[in-house]
């Protein structure tokens, strides 16, 4: 089996392997020079080379007897040795008799090379980088003496050992260089970190808020000076889980549950709780925290603040209380006015129907107020939520049949409505229902009303449809105050249109409102 057929490397592999030693065009070195000189002496030859074969040239790491640093690939015996040699050693007895070399200018011309003996320089992986060789200007035997063969083998090994040594040294030097670079970079990073840490501390220590930070698992490892100032605790005393003990016992479970849920989900944390002040009293505090994530999205830290909102909360609670109280007073005034009307009418029996009509209207207004006034959890009406349908249900409750079923059937889209719309809506439907009970569908036992509320684009349309009442022969000849009140409510207050159709089967009233009319304040807020 020949060398060529079992070689497992390509020319590209060979050039890459050579490049890895980074030896081409380096300065002469005594170790390599010594090998070349020794080889020349052993062979008693005028020329000896440590010849490395690049892609287009032979380059001499060491040489004896040529005074050259290399030659073209075409004139190189060693290149042929690599390309065509059938073992590690190639011997040419007389180049003029060998067709591969007869035309070589160094053979046919000066210096007139005849003899060649070369051994390939192989890497530990077996890739030949060049050859260690001798030339003679006189032909010789094509058989090497045992000493010559042995010298070639040992010295070629020496060359490769030197090459390996070079490579290792160089790699080591690189390693040292790169370690130095890393260390320099590390030092710069540490310095930058220290600087940013210092900046962070300067900022956080001077903040009016309490600032804290935790590890990803929620372990508190930093509190700023303001925290210790507020709580009066020794520095470090609230690290880890110690902070939880600073909360009012009634707030601990709530805050801890939320905090644990935030740690699990990464959701921002926001909670109000009472925090023990250095004075021993508890003050309301707003706690907030956000996770800091690394480039891959992993939470690496939580940063949080505590803001003293005790004063703010007192003011807010006070305002709520005042507004509650005011609202209650207003509601009470409705009751007083209503009672006053009733008492006044006692003197004048003929005024009774009039008094009743006014009291009913006042009652409708009071009901509207109850629905839209500011509420606390305790005062919130328990029936349904504060929507148009819930309100109308309450308003129509007196018009139920004997079995308690409402005779005014409410259907369609529900809507939220505010205090500005409430009085108008209350008066409109109070008048329609009162009128229906006196003259319309609700004046007969089988009569009913279907009230449909529909959101149509930017309009909100309410359709009052009376059924199964007394037959209607045409519009009434005289319109009462109640009717005017309904019109004023819709067209004046709500900015809509009110149309009445006196159908034979019953009255049909359509109130067509701008969709924003029911909740003007919300609409205004949205527009901002």
């Amino acid at each position, binding site marked *: 089996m020949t060398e060529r057929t079992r070689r497992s490397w390509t020319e590209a592999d060979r050039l890459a392997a050579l490049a890895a030693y980074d030896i081409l065009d380096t300065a002469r070195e005594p170790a390599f020079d010594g090998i070349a000189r020794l080889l020349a002496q052993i062979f008693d030859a005028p020329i000896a080379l440590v010849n490395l074969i690049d892609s287009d040239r032979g380059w001499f790491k060491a040489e004896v007897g040529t005074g050259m640093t290399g030659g073209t690939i075409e004139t190189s015996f060693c290149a042929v040795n690599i390309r065509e040699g059938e073992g590690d050693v190639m011997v040419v007895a007389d180049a003029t008799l060998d067709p591969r070399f007869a035309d070589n200018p160094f053979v046919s011309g000066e210096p007139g090379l005849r003899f060649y003996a070369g051994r390939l320089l192989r890497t530990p992986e077996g890739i030949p980088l060049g050859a260690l060789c001798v030339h003679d200007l006189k032909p010789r035997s094509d058989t090497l003496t045992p000493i010559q063969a042995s010298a070639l083998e040992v010295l070629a090994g020496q060359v490769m050992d030197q090459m390996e040594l070079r490579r290792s040294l160089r790699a080591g030097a690189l390693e040292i260089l790169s370690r130095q670079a890393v260390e320099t970079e590390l030092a710069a990073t540490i310095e930058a970190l220290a600087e940013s840490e210092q900046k962070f501390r300067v900022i956080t220590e001077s903040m009016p808020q309490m600032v804290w930070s935790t590890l990803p698992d929620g372990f508190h490892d930093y509190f700023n000076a303001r925290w210790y100032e507020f709580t009066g605790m020794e520095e470090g005393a609230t690290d880890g889980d110690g902070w939880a003990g600073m909360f009012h016992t009634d707030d601990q479970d709530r805050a801890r549950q939320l905090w644990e849920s935030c740690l699990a989900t990464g959701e921002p944390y926001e909670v109000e709780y009472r925090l023990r002040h250095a004075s021993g009293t508890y003050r309301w505090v707003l706690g907030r925290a956000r996770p800091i994530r690394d480039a891959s999205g992993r939470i690496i830290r939580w940063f949080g603040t505590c803001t003293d909102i005790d004063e703010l909360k007192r003011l807010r609670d006070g305002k709520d209380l005042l507004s509650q109280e005011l609202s209650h007073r207003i509601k*009470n005034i409705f*009751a*007083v*006015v*209503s*009672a006053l009307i009733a008492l006044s009418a006692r003197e004048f029996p003929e005024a009774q129907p009039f008094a009743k009509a006014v009291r009913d209207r006042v009652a409708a207004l009071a009901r509207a107020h109850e629905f839209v006034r500011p509420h606390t959890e*305790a005062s919130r009406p328990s029936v349904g939520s504060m929507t148009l349908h819930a309100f109308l249900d309450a308003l129509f409750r*007196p018009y*139920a049949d004997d079995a308690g079923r409402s005779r005014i059937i409410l259907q369609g889209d529900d809507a939220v409505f505010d205090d500005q719309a409430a009085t108008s809506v209350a008066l409109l439907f109070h008048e329609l229902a009162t009128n229906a009970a006196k003259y319309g569908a609700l004046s007969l036992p089988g009569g009913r009303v279907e009230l449909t509320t529909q959101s149509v684009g930017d309009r909100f349309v309410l359709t009052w449809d009376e059924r199964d009442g007394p037959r209607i022969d045409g519009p009434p000849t005289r319109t009462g105050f109640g009717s005017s009140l309904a019109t004023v409510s819709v067209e004046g207050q709500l900015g809509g249109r009110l149309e009445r159709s006196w159908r034979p089967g019953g009255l049909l009233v359509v109130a067509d409102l701008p969709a924003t009319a029911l909740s003007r304040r919300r609409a205004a807020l949205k527009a901002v």
Partner: protein
Amino acid sequence: MTARILIIEDEAIVAMELRFVLEDLGHEVIGMASDARAAQKAVDAGDVDLALVDIHLSDGPTGIELGRHLAQDQGVTVVYMTANPGMLGEGVAGTIGVLSKPTDERAVQTAVDYALRCRSGQPTEYAPPELRLFG
């Protein structure tokens, strides 16, 4: 059916109007109290069948507890009458319900009638729509 009724209400005009309505219906109004202490005195002084109890009295929002006590401990039938029915939440055990103010004669009449029927164990027809029942 006539009854002995106590009005517990701190707005004198509202209380007076209510008194006239109840007397027109043939009931005996044994007193009008504007705070919890006066109400308790009136109950102790004579048999009271029914108390109409406002929540906010002149001594504060004492009506809820007063109504509970009268109903549970003193055998008085209690109907709350308030402008703020939401304050009663889901209701007070032992009392009948709450009537929202302002209200009218008819609502007062049916609510009182309903409460007295409950008290005497008579069958009650459907409750008046204005009266929100507890329990």
